[in-house]
């Protein structure tokens, strides 16, 4: 009897065992190990030396590049995250319209996501080339002399943002599935009430998908801090270190300068920053995220809930 109960309890864990082992070995293990490393001066071939908080102190006191790279990454995130979400939402709205051939567009918009970051970097390297690039050629047709995107430090970060917005597809798809799930009768009711499409978007679509917006917001904040591939291959951190992102800074400390301990400390500081940002977003979410289960609460806060019928 007792044995049976134990086995019943154990079976679910058995099912997720492969994942758990993978998680412990490939995620938690290295994670903890990197925390340990961050307290050492850990060169490549010689023996590691314990330095306590030395790496962290160095970062905040003597390493000027640390704060520079951090600011660059924050700047990137501040522009890229909202821009990316707006584009994704816009495209998602487009592909939910009942138009012929919409499936083709859905595929076209999504395709860039499955291209590897390396290929995207090479592609955009050509597009953005100041002298021969197609982007500046198109601008010249409009009578605009395009900047030297990858040479002028004032434009380079924008160039990186444009190139990264290319991979908007997966976020678009998440928005798309959520928008598709909104019952059609809500819109029908709104139409009868005389709400125009813009009104419908702001009063129905947007409030209902706020949980998805929250999800996309958090994942894109995280991914924007982790952006490495693109800057490494497209700009190499330049021109004049204007796109020397925090991720690249960490990577170079580890694999170029071979300061593995210091780079681990960099990574942990980034982890803490992301943690704080995520916590802030979560904290704020109670003010703007709408869950179906608490429809009443939101209505009280003054947001109009146009959900009718189905209840």
């Amino acid at each position, binding site marked *: 009897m007792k044995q049976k109960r134990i086995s019943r309890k154990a079976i679910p864990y058995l099912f997720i065992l492969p994942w758990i*082992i993978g998680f412990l070995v490939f995620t938690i293990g290295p994670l903890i190990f990197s925390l340990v490393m961050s307290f050492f001066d850990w060169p490549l071939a010689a023996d590691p030396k314990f330095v306590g908080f030395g790496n962290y102190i160095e970062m905040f006191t003597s390493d000027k590049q640390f704060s520079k790279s951090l600011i660059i990454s924050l700047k990137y995130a501040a522009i890229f995250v909202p821009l990316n979400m707006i584009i994704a939402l816009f495209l998602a709205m487009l592909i939910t319209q009942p138009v012929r051939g919409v499936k083709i567009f859905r595929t076209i918009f999504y395709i860039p996501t499955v291209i590897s970051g390396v290929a995207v970097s090479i592609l955009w390297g050509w597009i953005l080339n100041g002298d021969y690039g197609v982007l500046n050629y198109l601008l010249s047709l409009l009578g605009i002399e395009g900047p030297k995107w990858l040479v002028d430090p004032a434009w380079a970060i924008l160039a990186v943002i444009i190139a990264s917005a290319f991979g908007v597809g997966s976020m678009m798809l998440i928005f798309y599935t959520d928008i598709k799930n909104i019952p059609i009768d809500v819109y029908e009711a709104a139409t009868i009430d005389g709400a125009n499409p813009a009104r419908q978007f702001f009063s129905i679509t947007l409030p209902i998908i706020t949980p998805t917006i929250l999800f996309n917001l958090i994942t894109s904040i995280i991914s924007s801090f982790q952006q490495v591939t693109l800057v490494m291959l497209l700009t190499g951190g330049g021109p004049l270190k204007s796109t020397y992102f925090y991720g690249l800074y960490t990577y170079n400390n580890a694999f170029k300068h071979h300061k593995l301990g210091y780079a681990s400390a960099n990574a942990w500081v980034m982890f803490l920053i992301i943690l704080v940002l995520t916590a802030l977003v979560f904290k704020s979410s109670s003010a703007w995220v709408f869950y179906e289960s608490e429809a009443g609460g939101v209505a009280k806060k003054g947001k109009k809930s146009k959900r009718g019928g189905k209840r």
Partner: protein
Amino acid sequence: MRKKLVAMLILAMTGTMFLGGCGSDGGSGSGGGDGKSGGKVKIRFASWDEAEDVDAQQAAVDKFNDAHDDIEVTLEAYGGEFDTKISAGMGSNDMPDVMYMWNYPAYSQGLEPLDTYIEKEGEDYKKNFYDTLWNYNSYDGSTYGIPIGFTTHALFYNKDIFAEAGIDEPTNDWTWEDVQAASKTITEKCEGKKGFSFQMKPDPYDYEMYLWSNGTAYVDAEGTLEGNLNSDKAKEVFQMFQDMEKEGSAVATEKSGTDEFRAGNTGMYVYGSWSINTLKEDGVNFGVVNIPSFGSQPSISILSSSGISMSKDSKNKEAAWEFIKFWTSEEMNKERIGMELPVLYSVVESEGIMEQPEYAPFYTMLEQSSDYTPSSFIYGSWSELSENLSLSFERVFNPSAMENVSDVLDEAAQQ
């Protein structure tokens, strides 16, 4: 009952999955056992080459394996990830036995000194290699690699553009003043073309050759920057390039400048032998001469060299050396012609390399550059210095910055 069966199955699958993973790891990793199986000594050989070059290497490795009953070499092509993988391998004691190598200052601690092996081969063995190459394959008094290939730099020029501008083609004894004069004429006479191009963000390792050519260096023998990097002679070099860019006869390119040269947009540029094959394929009518001098002494070139090294943790050093010897033999040097410049006197002579005008300057530059050691071999934390220098150079040459040469170099020397 059925549930139990499912549970058992999952358990079994998980088990095999992880055991399977470990099994294959133990077989190929040098960490597992003594690296012997079936009486054969296994050697892991890591290369940074890609695509067709790897096929050629695999063919050569197969040849070695066929000729040796007791050794089996496996080629591991790391490609562009070479440095990351070697770093990671060194950190986790999982180095290949034999590997390509260039950055000796960074990796020497994980490599086997090869001097005793070389001595055993007799005096003539070492003498057959171009002498300069040993400097670049040693660190701190020990030799860590056997030369495989190299390139020096030389001045490439487009013969058609020189004909169009109606001026004499460059010769081996050109000075930079000649280059400046020719650049001016080309830029004036040839619509939409520039006389000369150089890199906007040159690799500091490469760029030191211009300082050498003008009688200075980034650092002195003690590794001091002050008074070297910002010496008048160094400033002169940077000023000359910046002036050419400012007056418009030269253009600073984002990359090496090969693209611009191939497209026929620039008349001259300084580069390694890497572009020869591409230029030939494109049918560019080009010539190659020595790097121009600053007048007072012959010009010096940096060497980009590749060697082959042994891990100090290799368990089969004799077999590894056997393979290294094969890989650096006359036969293999001949095999690699077209991909690498041969490094053996005997091969250069027997293949008549010096009679080929596009290759000869690289050997002249090689012999002219024998007494110079790059700062990367002298200065302790070169990778960080290199990053700082790179930024400083960009501040001087980036058209949207073009900062004052003297100020930037003085500041860089303070770091």
